[in-house]
């Protein structure tokens, strides 16, 4: 297809000796420091074209979330490269940097700025975010008074409305009540029809993936087991999971 928004080459992410240690322990174990390496993502190579929607599936612990974080720049890759071609990226995450004692409105600013938006940009989107979250008068109440559903609704709205070029979604499509779920689903689809936006979704719901994604990557124990057209991969995956 056209140009790529994400290019990943031979990406490996290991969890290893960088374990935090206590001084006492290290005195006793000075000699037998064993370096344990856990390879979370092994030699993964793929491209996502601009405007493409890619799903990532796999059983628990297969490295999906690690991969997303590596894409978002939160983890450093141990080897391999991630090239985003200068696109802005955000991990659709629940409640980044929320201050629980402050109102929802204040937290929108806080969260938005953390994602790298300026005050003016947030100002202009503020009404839209508040409307989308649909919290009513609660938007001016401290976040600590929110129910967990309201909390995630607000968090979702912030990241969904403050659009970045690339959006990484980690299992948050099942947020809130039925009505909000529908709304967020519609919003996702809207993002998807926007040809400039690139989305990577991690989900366990095979239905969601089939409906939203064009390509699917199946991770198994950190390595790619299959990658390709959504329906083909999902058929295999569903068979495998049964």
């Amino acid at each position: 297809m056209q140009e790529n928004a994400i290019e990943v080459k031979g990406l490996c992410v290991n969890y290893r000796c960088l374990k935090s240690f206590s001084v006492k322990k290290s005195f006793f174990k000075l000699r037998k420091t064993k370096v344990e390496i856990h390879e979370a993502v092994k030699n993964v190579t793929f491209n996502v074209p601009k405007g493409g929607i890619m799903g990532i599936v796999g059983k628990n612990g297969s490295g999906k979330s690690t991969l997303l974080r590596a894409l978002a720049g939160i983890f450093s890759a141990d080897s391999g490269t991630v090239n985003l071609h200068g696109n802005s990226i955000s991990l659709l995450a629940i409640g980044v940097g929320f201050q629980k004692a402050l109102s929802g409105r204040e937290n929108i600013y806080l969260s938005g700025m953390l994602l790298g938006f300026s005050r003016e940009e947030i100002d202009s989107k503020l009404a839209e975010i508040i409307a989308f979250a649909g919290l009513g008068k609660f938007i001016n109440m401290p976040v600590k008074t929110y129910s967990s559903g309201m909390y995630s609704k607000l968090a979702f709205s912030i990241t969904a409305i403050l659009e970045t070029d690339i959006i990484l979604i980690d299992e948050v499509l099942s947020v809130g009540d039925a009505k909000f779920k529908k709304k967020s689903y519609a919003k996702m689809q809207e993002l998807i029809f926007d040809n400039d936006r690139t989305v990577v979704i991690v989900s366990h719901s095979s239905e969601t993936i089939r409906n939203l994604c064009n390509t699917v990557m199946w991770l198994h124990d950190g390595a790619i087991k299959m990658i390709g057209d959504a329906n083909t991969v999902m058929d295999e995956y569903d068979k495998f999971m049964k």
Partner: protein
Amino acid sequence: MKRFFEDTRNYFHYVIHSAKSELKAEVAGSYLNWIWWVLDPLCFMLIYAFIFGVVFDGKEKYFAAFIFIGLTCWNFFNKCIQSSVRMVKNNKAIIDKVYVPKFVLAYTRMGIDGFKMLISFGIIVGMLVFFRIPPTWNILYILPLLLLLIIITFAGMTILMHLGVFIEDMHNIVQILLRLLFYITGIFYSVVKRLPEPYGQYALKLNPIAFILNGMRDCLLYGRAPNVKLMLVWMVIGITVAAIGVRIIYKYENGYVKVI
């Protein structure tokens, strides 16, 4: 180095905003609200003034102001350093989800405590007026001294922040060291007058915090100029350490999430 300045600029608004909201959150539930920021240092000053002025018979001129200047600077340094050890861990929620240069967290902390320090300085001005202490042009030296304090604090924070991630016991060690530093810095006595020669001079010159405190008192209370040469030396040392700290953080910061 260029990246450091760019990041500092990019995250400047976030730092201001998050420091502000943290301050707001701090007093959100209390009855006296922001009055605590004034009350808190004042009360501690009274306690120390009583203990060391009356019980231990301290004889510095303008003793209350003398202690208060010491406490003001010490509180800033102490709180920043102490929180830096667990800073990365305590902000797990943030760094788990987005990339931020980790020293931005240190900025936020310094913003919060810096604000409180400014309030205390307001009180100091009030005290200067109250005690009728004649101001001299030497007062202007507090600006470079403040800058030095900020640089030294930031330098310490970057290093401790990094170590704190990997070394679980760091918190206890820092607690003890800070306590030691608290007593040898001379918050409520004059290191030069109370310690026997030549130790007094050593304690003053080798401990940047003691040096800053002494300089502040000199220029605010006694109309003397601080030792400019020594100030520059500490400035250079502070900047060097801070540069090393920032480099280390840049190099390892993406590994932090894996550890905590």
